[in-house]
């Protein structure tokens, strides 16, 4: 199974991407589709748009590395990660993770692992545009904690072996 990783300016179609992973095979029993969407407010203030800046080569390498790690840790039959960059308005999609597996546990866990990593390790930065101007969104401690729990599990897993 080779993960698909795409960085693009254009919106994606989550349904089409999910269907591709289950197409022409009968071993997929679980198909998880996570779509991150641009909210219309940030800290209670209405926003006009988000602009995502990224470090192109590193973003692709970093996501591919984590996609490969997910494929290594869980029994996946398919994996697609798409991350958009550029200007994105409220209601538009930002990020997509699709995982396919025979049983749901692997697909759920791998999708959550990838999203936690994308939040804290993939080189993307969100700038928010409101009536009062533009500002960079600060990283959230809760996202670091969410990503950190996978490290703990990895260490426990390695210690058990």
């Amino acid at each position, binding site marked *: 199974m080779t993960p698909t990783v795409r960085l693009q300016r254009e919106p994606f179609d989550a349904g089409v991407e999910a269907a591709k992973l289950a197409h022409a095979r009968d071993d997929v029993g679980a198909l998880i589709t996570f779509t991150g969407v641009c909210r219309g407010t940030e800290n209670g203030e209405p926003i006009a748009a988000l602009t995502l800046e990224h*470090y192109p080569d*590193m973003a692709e390498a*970093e996501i591919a590395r984590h996609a490969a790690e997910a494929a290594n840790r869980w029994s996946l039959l398919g994996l697609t990660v798409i991350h958009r960059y550029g200007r994105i308005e409220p209601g538009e999609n930002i990020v997509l993770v699709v995982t396919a597996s025979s049983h749901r546990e692997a697909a759920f866990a791998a999708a959550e692992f990838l999203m936690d990593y*994308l*939040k804290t390790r*993939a*080189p*993307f930065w969100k700038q928010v545009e409101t009536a009062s101007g533009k500002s*960079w969104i600060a*990283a959230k401690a809760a996202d670091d904690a969410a990503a950190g729990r996978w490290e703990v599990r990895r260490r426990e897993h390695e210690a058990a072996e």
Partner: protein
Amino acid sequence: MNVRLRYFAWVRERVGKPEETVEIPASVATVGDLMTWLASRGEEYAYAFENRNVIRAAINQSHVRPETAIKGAEEIAFFPPMTGG
């Protein structure tokens, strides 16, 4: 050592350019040393690197820590904590 430096998000805005190639003195050994050296290059650099604890770095497009040696690096990037996803 001649290295390509790249800056992203507010680090880029404060430095005032997305990238540059600089000749780094041999006395600069680690990523942390490099931030200290850059901060001494002018007002805009001092501003960009005033709070070094929050700035993240990558060497040749892999995450590194401040104590990582820069020897052999071709590209070093500085940026704020990431907010993707």
